[in-house]
């Protein structure tokens, strides 16, 4: 598969969304929690608490919606500032009760619009980056579809970042890149290749820790093994003192693009 075919696969509407993953992993135990306590409840972000085997976990996902109606309601997974603020509220709550945090990333990017700018999209993302870096509880981010730039990293400052084999993660969309650089968005396929945005590229660049085989919706066995893998990672990280874990998280990002003095 070429890079651009991966992008198309990541955007496919047939793909499982965050809600599918949450249902499959948490089942009946999931309780959705709403709102950022400040402005509103952004439906592009779904979050709450539930049990992963015997472990209480806070789970947050960027949700694109599974049919046309849902996609409209979820704003196609493009969150507003209140969505990122809701996520941060739930993460702070997780830290208080020393619960690990699991995030699912699937978005073309943070929403670009008048309201989003007026309510401080940049500020909301910046605050998440800063606060997530210091959270004293384990965080794991899983990219299940599209990872669009600032809107994706705002939920991905984690101890480990995993990606589905057909997920992508990029600083800019291939179309955006092509139209800025070559004034021609039809060269998106070429741009996709240059941007190094596939799971394999990112693994080689040291940006992610693990590439996962993608489960289908009725694949119980795959979900059970994914659940086990997540639980093991959380168990390992829960045994590390919070301060130290935060420091390790900082060093994880610190080494990316580090220059020799």
């Amino acid at each position, binding site marked *: 598969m070429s890079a651009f075919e991966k992008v198309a696969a990541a955007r496919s509407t047939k793909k499982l969304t965050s809600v599918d993953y949450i249902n499959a992993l948490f089942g009946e135990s999931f309780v959705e929690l709403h709102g950022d306590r400040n402005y509103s409840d952004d439906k592009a972000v779904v979050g709450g608490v539930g049990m992963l085997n015997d472990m209480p976990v806070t789970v947050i996902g960027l949700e694109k919606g599974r049919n046309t109606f849902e996609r409209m309601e979820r704003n196609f997974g493009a969150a507003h500032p209140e969505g990122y603020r809701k996520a941060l509220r739930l993460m702070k709550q997780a830290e208080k009760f020393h619960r690990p945090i699991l995030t699912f990333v699937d978005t073309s990017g943070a929403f670009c619009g008048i309201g*989003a700018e007026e309510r401080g999209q940049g500020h909301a993302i*910046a605050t998440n980056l800063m606060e997530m870096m210091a959270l004293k509880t384990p965080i794991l981010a899983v990219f299940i579809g599209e990872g669009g730039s600032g809107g994706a990293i705002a939920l991905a*400052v984690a101890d480990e970042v995993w990606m589905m084999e057909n997920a992508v993660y990029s600083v800019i969309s291939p179309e955006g890149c092509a139209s800025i650089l070559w004034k021609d968005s039809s060269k998106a396929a070429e741009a996709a290749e*240059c941007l190094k945005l596939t799971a394999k590229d990112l693994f080689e660049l040291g940006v992610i820790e693990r590439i996962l085989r993608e489960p289908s919706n009725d694949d119980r066995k795959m979900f059970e093994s994914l659940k086990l893998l997540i639980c093991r990672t959380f168990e390992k990280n829960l045994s590390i003192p919070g301060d130290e874990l935060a420091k390790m998280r900082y060093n994880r990002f610190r080494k990316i693009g580090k220059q020799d003095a």
Partner: protein
Amino acid sequence: MDLFTFMKPKNELESSDEKDVKKPFVPDEMWEKCPECGTLLLTTDIEENMRVCSKCNHHFRLNARDRINMTADKDTFVEMDADFESTNIIGFPDYDEKLEKNKKKSGEKESVICGTCKLGGIDIVIVSMNSEFMMGSMGTVTGDKITRAFEYATEHKLPIVVFTVSGGARMQEGILSLMQMAKTSGAVKMHSDAGLLYITVLTDPTSGGVTASFAMEGDIILAEPKALIAFAGPRVIEQTIRQKLPKDFQTAEFVLQKGFVDKVVDRRYLKETLTHLLKIHNYGEVEK
């Protein structure tokens, strides 16, 4: 007399068909037109007025070096990591050439200059981004230099002042640029947790990945008048929502009114304001 063959007698000064006629010589660099009000201004006058239009108060863009010279006390600036240079880490087409061109154009090696200096006699770390180098875009070296500046400030218990100007993350370095948003934010957090002061000065334009990271993380966020401050630039938004944006949308004054900037400060009073804020935070000698 044939009326239509009448020609006006030639005036010596008017001989337009002669090309080598000497017009008064005005070197280009002597005058600059204010892009806001259109007034023709003497370059020396603009320089004297800290590159602010004396007619309409338009703030011309400053390069990073001039910014530092204007802010730091005389002869106190010591540059850090001056020799750090970007390389084409993901093999992006034409990036090497672009880097060379921008180095030549700006006379700098990267899109940010970091160092220490005194400001109103107070020791600070200073970071100044450069719009003349790839529109101040944040690559890995930019991110690393800024991170190191924050780490230095934390280690030496110094306050830090950051002047931002940027088009966002540098796409020629792909995902590695995006990671700098998290990295710089982590360094800001450590500086903040150590109880130290971080003042941001947003200048025209500050956008994208820089707005969505350290630019918006200051304890105090100042901005220059009329500066564009955005996450998504106006063109991207217009394309997304397919409507024209109001003229003052995303200006410093607009962002101030929305509550994301503490104060809009005229460049000519900036040094005074920064010194005062540093003193209020108990840096330097407290005046009694």
